[in-house]
């Protein structure tokens, strides 16, 4: 983290979400990975983002009841 105008960690931070979403060009992916390989600060945050996404997904998951499943099957067109 330096105070330069183009702080590579700032840039990495901006690319983090699209990187995780696989929504970057090949060149951008390469740039992000090159930075991540050499920067422990950003790598920690990258790993956190991965963990965080899994956490949210599990935290808000609620399975459907078997009753609802049966009701949906009953909506099928009778043969």
């Amino acid at each position, binding site marked *: 983290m330096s105070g330069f105008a183009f702080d590579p960690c700032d840039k990495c931070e901006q690319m983090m979400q699209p990187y995780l979403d696989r929504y970057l060009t090949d060149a951008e992916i390469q740039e992000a990975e090159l930075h991540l390989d050499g920067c422990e600060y950003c790598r920690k945050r990258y*790993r956190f983002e991965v963990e*965080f996404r899994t956490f949210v997904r599990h935290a808000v998951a609620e399975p459907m009841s078997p009753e609802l499943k049966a009701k949906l099957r009953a909506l099928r067109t009778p043969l």
Partner: protein
Amino acid sequence: MSDESSARQLATDARDRVRFEEEALDLSDQVYGVARRLVGSREEAEDLVQETYARAFRSWRSFQPGTNLRAWLFRILTNLNIDRGRKVQRSPDLQPLEESDYFLYNKLEESSSDGTPDERRVVERLSQNDAVTALADLPHDFRDVVLLVDLADFTYSDAAQILDIPIGTVMSRLHRGRRMLKGSLAASATEDP
């Protein structure tokens, strides 16, 4: 059309319809998972999912085989949710988000007793209930996008088609929605004793 060919047509039709319905039903866990977070209660979610499937089965002919059935179903789901007249939203909080993307991690690390902990341990400090509440508190436009991309794994362009908004809007709402989510989780995780 001869009796024989119309009978054959009917049989083909029935077979296609059965296949369509089975494929749609295979996706019901995912549909329910998102529906549950689009609305406030389990009952509402169950109604919404039943309406979604009833409509999908009624209009199965408008689905083009070979296109994305999952996106087609989720489009019905999100449209029905909008039609149900979701609760009038307080105007989204449009104050500039000062927080950076690394905000939540920085906040958790800063308030951690053991310096720079393992990232997994940092996530463990977040509570499940707080995540549910934080998601429910997002303005619905933001929540729709976050649910489609982060929960249902749709691409930006699928989410754009499902919600009928430009892809740039998907990206900005997603980005903002995620930051809001992190902001409220940071607040609840660091204010507890």
